[in-house]
């Protein structure tokens, strides 16, 4: 009955082409916005300390420090500055963080992971206080710690909140549109639904076309939003590299999540609508 669901779903889409285009756009915009917002959050997160009101400052240590010495140094520093939240960047994330904090070390990074110096990140509400470490012999360099970082963090946090709320509201509106559309289509096809039930069609056969009718615009919305996000992030990335900041890229998980959200959320809205109203529309 999948073939029947697809064929009938396409008929519904053809009959209501304008609505399906509006639905695809209504779904695609908030999903694209959320994708760009998440990418920005992902990119700014380590720099601007998005987890709270604090900012993160990177401290590059001398490569000759042994792991045990580094751990002792971090422990001593934590005792000395209890208001700092100090963590060592794992070897897995080292290259990416170095590129983000110290883009001028590109040549060093090209030489391979083994040559990369250890890096710690200090989360603090006073980034300038980290400057005292400049005189320590263990420290090679300190990353950006100006108040711009804090401002950037605050802006980024507010931006993330605004993007989240706007995306959520737009997405809720799009899902409401999908639910109302399915509801209206169900009543428009009420006679057919009654006949299908009377000749022995199962609920899956009856409801399948309606689910396909929202899943296909949802798929288009998901793909368009992913493409739109990639293009937007590419544009932003050109801007950030021109400003001497690290490049920005959209994580593949976000792209997959966008397509999945595009398909699954309207289908879920349709399932709920059909469960609530399918029985009302049918006498038999």
């Amino acid at each position, binding site marked *: 009955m999948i073939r*029947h669901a697809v064929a009938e779903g396409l008929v519904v889409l053809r009959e209501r082409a304008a609505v399906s285009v509006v639905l695809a756009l209504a779904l695609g915009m908030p999903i694209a916005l959320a994708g760009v917002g998440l990418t920005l959050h992902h990119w700014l997160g380590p720099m601007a300390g998005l987890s709270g009101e604090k900012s993160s400052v990177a401290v590059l240590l001398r490569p000759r420090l042994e792991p045990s010495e580094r751990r002792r140094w971090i422990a001593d520093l934590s005792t000395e500055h209890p208001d700092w939240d100090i963590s060592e960047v794992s070897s897995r994330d080292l290259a990416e963080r170095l590129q983000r904090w110290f883009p001028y070390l590109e040549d060093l990074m090209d030489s391979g992971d083994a040559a990369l110096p250890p890096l710690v990140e200090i989360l603090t509400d006073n980034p300038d206080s980290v400057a005292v470490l400049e005189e320590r012999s263990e420290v090679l360099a300190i990353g950006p710690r100006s108040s711009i970082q804090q401002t950037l963090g605050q802006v980024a946090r507010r931006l993330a909140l605004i993007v989240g709320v706007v995306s959520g509201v737009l997405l809720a509106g799009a899902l409401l549109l999908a639910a109302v559309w399915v509801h209206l289509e169900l009543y428009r096809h009420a*006679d*057919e639904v009654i*006949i299908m*039930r009377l*000749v*022995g069609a199962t609920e899956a056969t009856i409801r399948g076309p309606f689910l396909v009718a929202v899943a296909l615009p949802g798929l288009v919305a998901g793909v368009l939003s992913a493409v739109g996000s990639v293009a937007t992030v590419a544009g932003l990335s050109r801007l950030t590299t021109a400003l001497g900041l690290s490049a920005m890229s959209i994580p593949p998980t976000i792209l997959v999540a966008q397509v999945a959200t595009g398909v699954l959320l309207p289908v879920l809205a349709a399932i709920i609508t059909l469960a609530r109203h399918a029985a009302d529309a049918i006498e*038999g």
Partner: protein
Amino acid sequence: MIRLRSVSKEYERRTILSALDLQIDAGEFVFLTGPSGAGKTTLLRLLYAAERPTEGEVWVAGRRVDEMMGSRLPLLRRKIGVIFQDFKLLRRKTVLENITFVLRIHGVAPREAHRRAMKVLRRLGLQHRQAALPDALSGGEQQRVAIARALAYQPRLILADEPTGNLDADLASELLSLLCDINYQGATVLVATHDQAILESIPARTLVLHQGQVHYDGMWPP
């Protein structure tokens, strides 16, 4: 095949069927007649579970249908071929698609569904109308499509509600002979009609409904 025990049906305090007891065995050909409003259509609707009785038990093909859960109704309805008084054809589907659709939901493969649909359309003289939409057909043609759809999957039980209402005498006679053929092949057939000519054309068990009860049960004419 069909058993009703003390079945009553009321609509808004109006009694349609009253403590009705009835048994129809597998392979029988039965006419159901009575004046308008006697409860013929209601009785048929109880059998394919489009209605539930106010009281009593309705058994079809060994299953109690008045207590059947909604999820099991499709399986019951696939055993029954119903010829509806108002045809109930899918308006957006062609004549051929109306029939293949039902066959497909019975699990018949597309090619086989097409073959069987064409066979039954030829039998009813509708092969030349296979691509037409129901609204382009005459009442008689729509009636024959409804019959073709009910017969296509060779059900064990056929319920026909005024199946000759839109047919001329020749076509009505042809339809009855078709139903007799199907009955001869083993299907149980229950035909609701108020057409005296039809009742007299075939010697068969006849149930006369009057004021919600079986007023007469025997061969017709009495």
